[in-house]
């Protein structure tokens, strides 16, 4: 029996990070049409941090949530329209209700990998509304496999119909993927998915490994268009899956056409793996620390890359900017003592 994998394409959501959330209505319309023509099952659109996240804190999007959803809905007839959503940024009343009205088919409710219990209400609401809802655990390398299973089971008990773990920092090696995905597949009775990032150049192989370990859902974007070093490159993955005999329902030539269109229209900078991406990936640290790390490095006369690794050892998470200065100070003191 041929293996079937459900692909979710977050080009127009994770990719929004790459252009500081400035994707235009035209970008969205054209890509949706191309993705649908290629047979992409789920097209995820929105601000990089999801529904309701357009803000001064993260960055304001060119399009409002409702506008981007309207354009996408208009241009997706057979493919499903999906969104990413983090409780704490959006609420049921202000955001989810309107997204349901806008015709969203698939809701992916996300939390940091140790905070699954913040998703109870939102997952429950979408289930009650009869829409498809998946649970998502972000920065999933920051929990042990055991804890990841615990958090995933929470989302399953809230009614999530599938569970996706994200390698948000691009820190996983294939062995990490096998260990975590196989445990999740074993412990859950809902399908398991994987969302790769390419900081260490392993986006595609990690995705293939996830499938071998039992994952039945994979995220990939065109040209890998996504935050930081980008996601697994969708068109490469389709080619690889085709050779491996794995069905995705996506037409290879048509997804290559979509890549061509994307390159012309909005993937103005093809994702590459920068020094910052490598270092933050290896350190397992949120790449959004780049600016404050640079500042601290200059102020204390230390190498910014050393700061990243030190932060990684301290398991720093987003919001701990003050830690950066502490770490820089320590490194400077060590340097002086040497």
């Amino acid at each position, binding site marked *: 029996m041929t293996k079937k994998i459900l692909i979710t394409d977050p080009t127009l959501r994770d990719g929004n990070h790459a252009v500081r959330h400035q994707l235009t209505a035209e970008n969205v319309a054209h890509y949706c049409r191309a993705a649908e023509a290629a047979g992409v099952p789920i097209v995820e659109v929105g601000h990089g941090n999801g529904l309701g996240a357009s*803000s*001064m*804190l993260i960055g304001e999007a060119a399009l409002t949530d409702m506008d981007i959803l309207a354009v996408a809905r208009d241009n997706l007839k057979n493919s499903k329209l999906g969104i990413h959503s983090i*409780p*704490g*940024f959006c*609420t*049921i*009343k*202000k955001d989810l209700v309107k997204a349901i009205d806008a015709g969203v088919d698939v809701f992916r409710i996300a939390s*940091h990998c*140790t*905070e699954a*219990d*913040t998703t*109870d*209400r939102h997952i429950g609401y979408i289930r009650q509304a009869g829409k498809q809802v998946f649970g998502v655990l972000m920065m999933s390398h*920051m929990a042990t496999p055991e804890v990841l299973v615990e958090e995933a089971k929470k989302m399953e008990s809230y009614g999530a119909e599938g569970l996706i773990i994200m390698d948000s920092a691009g820190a996983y090696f294939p062995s990490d993927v096998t260990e975590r995905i196989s445990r999740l597949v074993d412990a859950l009775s809902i399908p398991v998915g994987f969302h790769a990032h390419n900081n260490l150049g392993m986006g595609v192989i990690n995705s293939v490994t996830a499938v071998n370990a039992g994952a039945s859902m994979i995220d990939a974007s065109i040209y890998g268009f996504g935050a930081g070093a980008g996601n697994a490159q969708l068109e490469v993955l389709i080619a690889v899956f085709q050779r491996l005999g794995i069905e995705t329902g996506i037409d290879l030539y048509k997804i290559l056409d979509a890549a061509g269109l994307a390159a012309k229209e909005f993937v103005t900078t093809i994702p590459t793996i920068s020094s910052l991406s490598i270092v933050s990936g290896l350190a397992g640290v949120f790449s959004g620390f780049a600016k404050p790390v640079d500042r601290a490095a200059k102020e204390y006369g230390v190498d910014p890359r050393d700061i990243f690794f030190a932060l990684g050892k301290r*398991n*720093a*998470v*987003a*919001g*701990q900017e*003050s*830690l950066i200065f502490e770490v820089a100070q320590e490194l400077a003191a060590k340097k002086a003592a040497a």
Partner: protein
Amino acid sequence: MTQKSKVKVGIIGTGNIGTDLMVKIMRSEWLECTLFAGRNFNSAGMQKANELGVHISDRGIDAIVQNPDICDIVFDATSAHAHHEHWAILDKLGKTVIDMTPAKLGALCIPAINAKEALDSGARNINMITCGGQASIPIANAIAQVHPNIGYIEVASSISSRSAGPATRHNLDEYIDATEQALQKFSGAVRCKAILILNPARPPIDMQTTIYAQIENPDIEKIRVSVEAMVKKINAYVPGYKMIVNPTVDGNRVIVTIKVVGAGDYLPPYAGNLDIINCAAIAIAEQVAEIKLRKEQNND
């Protein structure tokens, strides 16, 4: 010279908020905790109350119904849902209630901004909004005093994962809703947004809030003066409230970041988010008590 008396205060809700309130009230010159009521005797708070010699009950609101003289002011530290039921009863009994839940039935109160108005209005249900609200709204208000017609204000709070229990996690929507509503009221901004982020870092981070105000050509000097004055006002009842990023212009927005380090009365200092709402609640309750005692003295 007459013996200084205290106003009797009851607390319903024996979780972290209620227990921390009780410990703070023990230090108050104006308030005396005469009842600590919840639904079961097994909580840590109940045991703490017992240790401190405070009268405990597992009958919840019934403890007051059965003995209305037991307290005059009531802190409701239960849930928004339960508060509706409690207020209906306490209103009839003529009690003054300080509502720690996001039920929003009463007068919204930020002591540094509108303590006087809330008291003068004679409102007997005073709502303390949310912890993030108590932290950020005074700053938003201080900025709005300089620039009254702000188009957009956003407050983003980070609290440690450890300080957020099941109730907080289950009610993020209510938290955001209550904070935004109060932000609107006290800043007059056209659009408001509140964000709450739970941060699992270890050791646990202190509560931190950043306020963003969208203002073209801000008068940063005037804003600084206004904000500093407000911070001073807040320090009178929240000693651990600190500005860590002074009002700064960044493009078309003004940014201020504040941090709250808790007093460590019942919960550790990183739980500044719980501390600030409790400090604010005590501050207004003490003013209510002061007025009450003065009235009684004048009547003697």
